């Protein structure tokens, strides 16, 4: 998997680490090359007993300086704008077939200090958006190296929140590419992992997972619609049981908000119609409506609930539940208010109340 160490250029190795910043500045390609060499070197020598610790420390320092330099080229500094040509050169070199720098960096992250770790995250994030000859070559690289996405996803299993967050933000950048998002969505294994990660007790990590998941479910609309159509049953069973019925308040709140967003998206209208035809789904949403201790959850649940009510092809079991509960629902919605004045919400509420009130006579036969 790794490029073997014979590829290491002797000339590169001999460079004095101090000279890089003092003598004439290296080209972006040279910095990429040196970074790679350092990573290969540190990776292969990690277990060597003969290798002196001090020497290793020195190399580590040089590595973090190089990463910082990469970041400076990509983001510019307070004095200078990033130079497009330099960025393109860097990106091209970074994703060269036999450079494998992204792989080396991702694997080496746990051994970096916090600062370098953050620098790597930012460099990787930036590279996902760099175009070379109007192509996102990062996407091409990831397509050929999808196993790296697996590594990033399991990064959420790290107990060290610094690491988990670093992997998480890189992952979020990678799923900006449609093909990568599709790869993750189409893997049931990965999706099930997400449901589990969202329940991690550590708030920083769990909420980072949630935002990645949201990105996954909302960014590439056609891909998402296709995924949901194909995987409707198992996905929503998992979604309901693992998220909407979760004992954890924050999980429920985030899940019901996202659900509303996904179902209300026009590309997902077929998915929505199917969702609101299920009595089980209605039961779960109505339970969320009853959560008087959380106005936020109630309001988001109301948004989803409205979709059941306005369904023109309402199945009889759904209708039956609505009719039986109509009095309770009318009473409940009477006390519903948003924090801020929201005419749209008030209008929606009035509309829904009207429909519910009208349901009753129609269906008692």
């Amino acid at each position, binding site marked *: 998997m790794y490029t073997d160490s014979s590829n290491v250029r002797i000339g590169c190795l001999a460079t004095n680490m101090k000279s890089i910043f003092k003598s004439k500045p290296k080209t972006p390609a040279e910095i990429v090359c040196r970074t790679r060499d350092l990573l290969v070197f540190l990776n292969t020598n990690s277990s060597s007993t003969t290798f002196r610790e001090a020497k290793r420390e020195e190399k580590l320092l040089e590595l973090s300086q190089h990463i910082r330099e990469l970041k400076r080229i*990509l*983001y*510019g*500094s*307070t*004095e*200078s*704008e*990033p130079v497009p040509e330099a960025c393109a050169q860097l990106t091209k070199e970074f994703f060269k077939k036999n450079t494998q720098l992204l792989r080396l960096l991702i694997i080496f992250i746990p051994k970096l*200090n*916090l*600062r370098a770790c*953050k620098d790597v995250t*930012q460099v990787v*994030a*930036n590279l996902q*958006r760099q175009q070379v000859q109007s192509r996102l070559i990062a996407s091409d690289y990831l397509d050929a190296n999808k196993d790296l996405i697996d590594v990033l996803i399991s990064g959420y299993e790290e*107990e*060290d*929140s*610094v690491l988990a*967050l670093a992997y998480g933000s890189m992952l979020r950048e990678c799923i900006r590419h449609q093909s990568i998002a599709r790869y993750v969505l189409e893997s049931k294994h990965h999706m099930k992992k997400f449901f589990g990660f969202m329940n991690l*007790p*550590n*708030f*920083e990590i769990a*909420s*980072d997972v949630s*935002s990645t998941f949201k990105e996954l479910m909302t960014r590439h609309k056609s891909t998402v619609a296709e995924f949901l159509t194909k995987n409707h049953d198992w996905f929503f069973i998992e979604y309901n049981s693992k998220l909407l019925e979760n004992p*954890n*308040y*924050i999980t429920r*709140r*985030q899940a019901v908000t996202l659900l509303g967003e996904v179902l209300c998206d026009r590309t997902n209208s077929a998915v929505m119609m199917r969702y609101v035809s299920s009595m089980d789904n209605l039961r779960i949403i109505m339970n969320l409506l009853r959560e008087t*201790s*959380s*106005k*936020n959850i109630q309001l988001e649940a109301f948004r989803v609930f409205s979709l059941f009510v306005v369904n023109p092809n309402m199945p009889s079991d759904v209708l039956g539940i609505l009719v039986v509960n109509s009095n309770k629902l009318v009473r409940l919605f009477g*006390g519903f*208010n948003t*924090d*801020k*004045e929201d005419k749209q919400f008030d209008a929606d509420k009035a509309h829904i109340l009207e429909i519910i009130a009208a349901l009753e006579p129609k269906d008692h036969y």
Partner: protein
Amino acid sequence: MAVHEEEENRKMRYPVDPNSYMILQKIGCGVSATVYKAACLPMNSTVVAIKAIDLERSRANLDDVRKETKAMALLSHPNILRAHCSFTVDHHLWVVMPFMSAGSLHSIISSSFPDGLNESSIAVVLKETLNALLYLHDQGHLHRDIKAGNILVDSDGSVKLADFGVSASIYEPNPSNMSSSMLSSSHLWFNDLAGTPYWMAPEVIHSHVGYSFKADIWSFGITALELAHGRPPLSHLPPWKSLFMRITNRLRLSDYDKCKKDKNKKFSKSFKDMVASCLSTDPSKRPTAEKLLKHPFFKNCRSLDFVVKSVLQGLPSVEDRYKEALQSCQNPQTLVHDYDVDDNDEECLADPVEKQRRISGWNFNEEVLELDPVYPSQNKENDSKRVRFDGDKIFQDKSGVKDERNSVTASLCEIPSFFLEDTHAHNELENKDERWGKPHMDVGTQSNSGEAGIDLNTEKNEDILANGEEQDCELEPPSTDDTPMVAAAPLVPLLRVIMGSLDDERQVLLNLIDNISVGHIELKHEDQIQHTIAQLSLQLEQERKKSSDLETELELLRQTMTIAETDKISKTNSSVECNNTVGSNTTE
């Protein structure tokens, strides 16, 4: 150096379940968050601070809360308060942090140093804060809320910067924050209004022009003043009002008295110079954190032990301070900064808007270590005309203030117009400046004549320039005073803030109505209603008192004006500057 502590922190894992912690005491409280002192049982009962944020009541959306905890998890520096961990407990988010036993500098000052700290201690704590700021800026982070209330001190004198509730990162793509491409660091401009009013830099308030790292340096300068005087400038006003004061201003008697008292306090040249550099109206003239650390004021800084001896000794504990504050003050909002709970934006917006005079920035008055307002009209020759023409209008304006109190909305409608009316208050202001012991220059006259001020400090010339420049970026035509729509542009974010508060009040009323209507149906709630009524009448009483206080203050102010007016006439003859001003007035 920092690496070791960092690695240690990464190894030590605090449990993420509430049963592992034993709450010892409440040490701070805001509208949507409470801070407790607690013991972490599995870790030998290590004492920690737990900030419990009510996610249902918190105005901030979940994304903001997430951003804060993420920032706190990813920043690591000895001078930055880093969260041990965070987890949710029902609808509260618990953020477990190191317990800083001496509390915030704000709380230390208000409990034991009402007139400010001594200069050597200020140097030590500011230097520590500056280290934190240097690190933050280097990491691409803006803190955006630097103030004594967010600087925490431990029993060993160590200092940590806290509260990243409104911090922002230039590397975190957030389209609403960024006015230009996020892929480049040299264009790090933010446009949103964030922070606490008293400490906000002018360019943050005028947020349509964008701001960056230098906004933190301004707040740092204000914090220095806060530590030196025991309070930030304009702090006698409610926060939102101080925002107006930064663009519109009228100074009060209480300020002058305070100022005179402070004159007994001698500040070193280097301290004044340091603060002055931070408070330059032109952000580009403010030093970077790195440069500021090299300032002579921070050379030969004392050790942390000095702070322990001169500040911390005999200080009541954070817990006692909190209790004391609870007893001495009915209004829980003043407790907000006791630890580091922040709900500034939720603070009192019930006061009516008062007509204020517009200023374009602040001149830092080095002599008395205070801020003096700069008035845009001073640059305009034709303005002196108006001063005379409308001189008698001032008092009319003021009698109007009373009526405005009746309704906040009514006074809100007035906002655009006070640009028109209040620029006429030119004359009174000069009198005030004399009372400050600093003769006021008519800037326009000075730049025309090319003569430097006679006893103005060296900073002044720069500030005049800065002032001129800032006007440029405000995009205001010279005839600003006649075009209130243009002048109102910078006010839009402020108006939004006020709108938000009105929304809140509306919500409170709605809730009340709800309660009452529910009560009609179910008489069980009668007790609740009675309770609410009792609370309401209490509030009403407080409002009445506030209003009468304001009226007395107004009366006092009017008296001062009259005195000032006579004062001015007598001084006009003796003062060169005033002669100049009068000269330019009469020639028009």
